[in-house]
């Protein structure tokens, strides 16, 4: 950001123009007793040399994902971000723009979002995507509300216990003032038992919410779950990992009605847990129930291609209390990052990333389970993430030592209260491990050595 200075002469000229005698007069509207009448309590100014040394010292204390091997999972992943993503996203035209309120004047932003929507549709196999929402949790919640509107069933939704517990909390918050029952089908075996889902559904159910791969990393039988939902006239809402679609069947291909995701893996840094990107796509027939902004392509009066905001009439600034959603914006800059990332990787690149994650994760799981007292918590197929069970009360020690050795694992399952009831004692011993394309075989082997030492108490 540029440093904007002004001289005493310029200040006088400005004050004169607005008819004020001094800068302090500008604060006259602040009540006398609230005004600070002493200098701010700040350390003395630094010279440029001192300042640079000070900042360098501060920055040196940062421990970022790039200086360690981050193998944390649970919805946020340390995927590689190609330099071109930052290059484009940091251009002033994009970087300083907020979601366009005078939309059609911002053709560049609209084009980027239109391309984002196109890429998300290709990625998911769905008909239509909005221009993005805030993050994974809001996407799941908005999908639930959308399903309630589309089916006119406002009394009940069913959600699997293997959906991210924080997403489930967001759903609970969203629905807390509606008369809607949220039925959670528990997943003690890591994935859900189809018969239990069948028992939970009925003809009052608006939707079935499934996460694929689920929170524990396991693959649910998303196809059959979708079929079961449809049998009861409920919509199938699938929360997916965008990278996984390089290998797994697309939600649109197995009949999901609404596909949602946390878009962080698509070129967005982990940045201490946010801001992230909410993806939401659906079938054409639900487009008018869809929240958020939707960019369309058309031609202007000169016959040139141009972009417009569609379906605005359903947004809250026009429709007030009858709006589809209170979300009237999108996550512009991060949607742009995802657009650049997907465009750069393409179909083949995304498949390669997915394959690398999958192979490396399976190598890691195989090696880690050779350690005595360490095992996979669930015997289920997985993609890039798995739940590791560390027995004999060694979990804390293992995590502490791994951290010292430069590896971050987690979150632990006991971090989430709802798992205590689902898994009992096992939840005390479970931790998530995710392996992205960034991890090398050497990283994984060193992690295995670190854990082996820890469980032996060395």
């Amino acid at each position, binding site marked *: 950001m540029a440093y904007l200075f002004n001289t005493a002469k310029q200040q006088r000229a400005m004050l004169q123009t607005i008819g004020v005698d001094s800068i302090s007069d500008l604060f006259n509207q602040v009540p006398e007793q609230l005004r600070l009448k002493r200098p701010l309590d700040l350390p003395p100014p630094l010279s440029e040399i001192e300042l640079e040394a000070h900042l360098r010292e501060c920055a040196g204390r940062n421990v970022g994902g790039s200086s360690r091997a981050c193998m944390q999972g649970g919805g946020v992943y340390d995927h590689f971000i190609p330099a071109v993503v930052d290059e484009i996203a940091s251009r002033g035209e994009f970087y300083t723009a907020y979601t366009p309120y005078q939309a059609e004047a911002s053709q560049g932003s609209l084009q980027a979002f239109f391309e984002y929507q196109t890429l998300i549709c290709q990625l998911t196999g769905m008909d239509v995507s909005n221009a993005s929402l805030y993050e994974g949790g809001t996407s799941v919640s908005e999908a639930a509300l959308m399903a309630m509107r589309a089916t006119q069933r406002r009394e009940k939704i069913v959600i699997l216990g293997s959906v991210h517990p924080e997403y489930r909390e967001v759903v609970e918050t969203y629905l807390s003032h509606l008369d809607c029952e949220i039925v959670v089908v528990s997943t003690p075996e890591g994935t859900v038992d189809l018969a239990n889902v069948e028992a939970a559904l009925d003809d009052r159910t608006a939707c079935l919410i499934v996460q694929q791969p689920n929170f524990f990393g396991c693959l649910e039988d998303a196809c059959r779950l979708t079929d079961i939902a449809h049998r009861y006239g409920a919509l199938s809402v699938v929360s997916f990992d965008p990278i996984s679609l390089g290998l797994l069947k697309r939600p649109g291909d197995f009949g999901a009605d609404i596909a949602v995701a946390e878009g962080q893996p698509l070129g967005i840094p982990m940045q201490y847990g946010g801001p992230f990107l909410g993806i939401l796509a659906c079938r054409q027939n639900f487009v*008018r129930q869809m929240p958020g902004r939707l960019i369309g392509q058309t031609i202007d009066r000169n016959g040139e291609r141009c972009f417009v905001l569609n379906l605005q*009439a359903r947004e809250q600034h026009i*429709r007030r209390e009858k709006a589809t959603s209170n979300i009237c914006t999108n996550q512009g800059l991060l949607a742009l990052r995802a657009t650049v990332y997907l465009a750069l990787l393409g179909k083949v690149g995304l498949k390669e990333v997915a394959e690398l994650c999958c192979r490396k994760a399976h190598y890691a799981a195989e090696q880690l389970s050779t350690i005595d007292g360490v095992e996979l918590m669930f015997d289920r197929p997985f993609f890039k993430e798995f739940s590791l069970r560390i027995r004999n009360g060694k979990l804390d020690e293992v995590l502490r030592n791994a951290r010292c050795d430069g590896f971050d694992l987690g979150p632990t399952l006991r971090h989430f209260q709802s798992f205590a009831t689902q898994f009992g004692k096992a939840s005390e011993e479970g931790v998530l491990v995710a392996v992205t394309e960034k991890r090398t075989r050497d990283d994984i082997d060193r992690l295995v050595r670190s854990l082996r030492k820890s469980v032996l108490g060395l």
Partner: protein
Amino acid sequence: MDPAELNYTTTHEWIYAHRGVAAVGITEFAVRALTDLVYIDLPDVGRMLGVGEVFGEVESVKAVSELCAPVAGKVIEVNESLPDELDILSEDPYGRGWMIKLNISEPSALHALLDLAAYQEHCTTDSH
């Protein structure tokens, strides 16, 4: 259809009743106020509607308006050609622009509605 033979609601629907069956649409005034129409959502045949109940919505580039049933009744027919040809609404709002046909539950309910003069009066005093 002659506008003088119709009854009207304050929410800008018209209704024409004959032998217990009624056709319902929206007025020319409403169509003009909405400007460019882009979408219409109509109910399924068989649905029971109460007086004033929302039976669908019509959307323009500027606004979404709900369609309200002038009288109670059962939907016996829906104008299937409207969703694909919204121009019909501006070309012939009182004829080919009909939206639904109802089996009226209580024919006497029609008396509570506005006649043309009263509706025109309503349009000049209330621009919504």
